[in-house]
């Protein structure tokens, strides 16, 4: 039996999210206080040595990203921090849980991150439909200003930092960091071409650090308690904890924070209460629409960035959608492919045409095409072509659910 290890979620359900005093009583803003006495570069080192990797999906080293951002363009007058709070990956709601239940935590993390790269201005780009998270964040920002944790000369340190809330307006693609920057500037959400990365030319062409809400929420604790404390959690290459959001056919769907390296079996049976009606497990979609299907052969694999990648699966955002025997992997795959078609911005041909074709071809799998095996192989090939020729990572995503579904559930996809 594993237990949850609540670090990032320690205050959830235990404090009133609207009360900054509650947060302070729960050792809130201690990380910031300590950070302001440290040299900015030593904060970056601390985060780097703690081995923190981005929780937005890609798992890039947070310390390295900070280092790049703090070093690029020394002559630039302004640096920015952008909080990616545009959570939209199907099956994912970890950031919403943090924002609704402990909004000061990610704001504190944002201020520390800003101080470490010497950014004096930050934006939170929050999903427009997350009304409760928006309300909580608004109040938390106002209270943090009132108590001197934001604004000029924070806690007498001489460090100034302004934080502004910006709302998204219903585009999944705007969760992609470069597209988000366009949207932040008040434009349509068309992706920018990488490179340059945000660290070099981000919002308003200035060096910008883009981090996910969960990533930033981990920073106050790493600073307050030190990297040694953090290093006790997780595995060598995937440190710390991860919040998984588990949904579908389990008895207790919800959010669970566990140490990196837990297995899917532990997550489903130890924490989420097992399968509804104790029916047999069939599959899980891990990481959302831009994620991968797995079958029971993966139940005992340790969930770390690298181990899952090696096995052809993804950790992604931490979404786990559980299917029981009798549920249709075909329907789920079809749903994911429709999602990509719907969310493709249409700017480049491979993705615009490809997402439409994949949906059509998936329908054809059910419409009595004679050679279904060839069709399925062709779909995987097309998705591969899309992945290599699309402008942005959205076009590189459909291959993930498609290829994994085709790998584990070939006969179901071809059957009808």
């Amino acid at each position, binding site marked *: 039996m594993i237990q949850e290890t609540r670090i990032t979620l320690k205050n959830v359900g235990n404090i009133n999210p609207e009360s900054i005093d509650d947060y302070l009583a729960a050792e809130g803003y201690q990380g910031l206080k300590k950070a302001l006495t440290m040299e900015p570069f030593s904060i970056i080192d601390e985060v780097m040595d703690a081995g923190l990797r981005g929780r937005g999906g890609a798992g890039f080293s947070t310390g390295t990203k900070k280092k790049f951002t703090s070093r690029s363009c020394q002559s630039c007058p302004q640096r920015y921090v952008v909080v990616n709070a545009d959570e939209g990956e199907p*099956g994912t*709601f970890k950031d919403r849980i943090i924002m609704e239940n402990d909004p000061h935590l990610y704001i504190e993390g944002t201020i520390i991150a800003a101080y470490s790269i010497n950014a004096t201005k930050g934006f939170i780009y929050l999903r427009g439909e997350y*009304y409760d998270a928006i309300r909580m964040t608004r109040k938390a920002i106002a209270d943090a200003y009132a108590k001197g944790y934001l604004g000029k000369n924070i806690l007498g340190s001489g460090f100034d930092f302004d934080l502004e809330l910006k709302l998204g*307006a219903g585009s999944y693609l705007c969760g992609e960091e470069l597209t988000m920057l366009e949207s932040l500037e*008040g434009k349509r959400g068309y992706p920018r071409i990488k490179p340059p990365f945000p660290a070099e030319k981000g919002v308003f062409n200035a060096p910008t650090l883009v981090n996910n809400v969960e990533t930033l929420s981990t920073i106050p604790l790493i600073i307050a308690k030190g990297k040694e404390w953090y290093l006790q959690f997780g595995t060598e290459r995937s440190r710390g904890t991860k919040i998984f959001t*588990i*949904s579908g056919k389990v008895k207790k769907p919800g959010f669970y924070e566990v140490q990196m390296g837990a297995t899917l079996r532990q997550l489903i049976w130890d924490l989420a209460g097992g399968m509804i009606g104790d029916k047999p497990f069939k599959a899980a979609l891990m990481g959302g629409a831009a994620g991968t299907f797995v079958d029971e052969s993966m139940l005992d694999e340790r969930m770390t960035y690298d181990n899952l990648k090696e096995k052809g699966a993804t950790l992604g955002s931490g979404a786990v959608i559980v299917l029981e025997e009798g549920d249709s992997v075909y329907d789920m795959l079809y749903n994911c492919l429709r*999602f990509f078609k719907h*969310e493709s911005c249409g700017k480049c041909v491979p993705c615009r045409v490809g997402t439409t074709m994949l949906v059509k071809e998936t329908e054809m799998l059910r419409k009595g095409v004679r050679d279904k095996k060839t069709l399925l192989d062709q779909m995987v090939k097309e998705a591969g072509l899309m992945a290599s020729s699309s402008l942005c990572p959205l076009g590189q995503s459909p291959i993930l659910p498609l290829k994994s579904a085709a790998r584990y559930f070939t006969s179901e996809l071809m059957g009808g």
Partner: protein
Amino acid sequence: MAAVFHCIIQIFITFPNAKETALCTVIPVRFCKPNPYGNMSTKEILDKFEARQDNLLMILHALQDNHPQNYLTEEALSDAAKYLKLTKSSVYGVAKYYSMFSLKPRGKYIIRVCVSPVCELMKGKEVLAQLEETLGIIAGETTPCGRFSLEIAECLGQCQEAPSMMINDKVFNHLDSKKVNEVISKYRHK
């Protein structure tokens, strides 16, 4: 006269088992438009924001939220463009790009039904079908009296309690046929 007529119609509309469409088709739409609530002028709204392009989305949100029919009018777009010194076509392009913005009138209550994987897995399709049936419209449409608009949405981040929908800024989870009926009849009376 109009007021009396309006009153009678309201009684009809709020009749629990009434189907919006059946009643509304016989009623001139202008009589059943919801009353503007606490409307601010466009200028008052614009004045709350600094005239910077990066405020465009926030401005469009505010203008749309302020309109009783939850949409961006031609005038609103021009005023926003003028205020930010942008071309009207670029503001239009932005408004059109984002799915939360509407360029045509919508209902007082916008129902967003999640059609993403978890909700589909948990029988969300039945919820959508039931809503279409009860309201007499299909996704993308507004009831003739302008009370409800029905829209499909991607994952609302409520998957642990799927299937889910939102009505304006409120979330409704664990939907089944009984709950959908309860919620809708409550909003019919609102």
